């Protein structure tokens, strides 16, 4: 499986069609390449503006990942479907998406510390086991928490 797939965000809607209008963002491919969950809600902490980016190594981006492992995913409980940061290239982060079966906790999303959140109803995401922790580093540029180092 590829380490990342693309979604497109236009500020209001998310699409898995890479040709859709909007900003192309890399996500953990496991989030969109499996059995899709219908009627889910995606909290998109990103902007359609192409200049809205932070480096993955910035302290606030590291801390948002720590918060996701420490309390954000446990807080969502059974509602959690999947989570991925948005990678733009080998070093920059365009935000994150958290997908849940209901949106009541989204105001607590730690990734809103990076970019404002937009709630989008979406059928394009799949259930993915939460990251095991504690790693917050990326694997060969894959959008955290996806990817792994492959052995020959």
């Amino acid at each position, binding site marked *: 499986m590829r380490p990342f797939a693309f979604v497109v965000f236009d500020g209001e809607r998310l699409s898995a069609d890479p040709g859709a209008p909007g900003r192309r963002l890399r996500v953990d491919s496991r989030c969109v390449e499996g059995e899709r969950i219908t009627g889910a809600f995606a909290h998109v902490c990103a902007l359609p503006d192409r200049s809205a980016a932070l480096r993955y190594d910035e302290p606030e981006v590291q801390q948002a990942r720590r918060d996701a492992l420490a309390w954000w995913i446990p807080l969502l409980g059974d509602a959690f479907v999947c989570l991925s940061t948005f990678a733009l290239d080998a070093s920059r982060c365009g935000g994150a998406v958290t997908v849940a079966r209901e949106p009541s906790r989204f105001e607590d999303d730690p990734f809103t510390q990076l970019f404002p959140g937009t709630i989008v109803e979406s059928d394009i995401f799949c259930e993915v*086991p939460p990251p095991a*922790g504690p790693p917050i580093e990326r694997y060969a540029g894959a959008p955290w928490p996806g990817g*792994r180092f*492959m052995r020959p």
Partner: protein
Amino acid sequence: MNPRPGGAFPDVALPDHTGRERRLSELAGGDPVALLTSRGWWCPKEQRYMRELCRLQDEFEVAYARIVVLSVDTPEVQAAFRAGLGARFTFLSDAERRWLAPLDLLETTDTVQRPYRPAAFTLFPDLRIHRVYNGYWYWGRATMEELRRDMREISREIRDDWEVPAR
């Protein structure tokens, strides 16, 4: 089954601290693992040791290695304990004590709680056992320095680019 260095640790499948069923191999995810068995939240020695592990997690988080704790606490109790500690690693719950006997890790001197005996296993990504530590006495536990050493040794063996690749 008596897990020993060089042998394979079983790919246990148990609920994590959120109640989701997880396999140990999935949690490893291709990285080395420090697997700690723990009496449970109520033991002062465990509370002390887990605080040490939480300091060490700041190194694991950037070093492509995993920490997993296995105890008989329920997922709800583990979630509360984990939150109180500030842990960002996974707890596995064997509240039904399915793996206690197969792993031969029952702490026989505690007939009330029937917990896991504190132990540590440092594992390769394929769950091959590197070292085993018997923590029945606190001083037998894997120190943070020993865990660092083991993670270094395993990483050196599994990372093909441990020696900096030539240009």
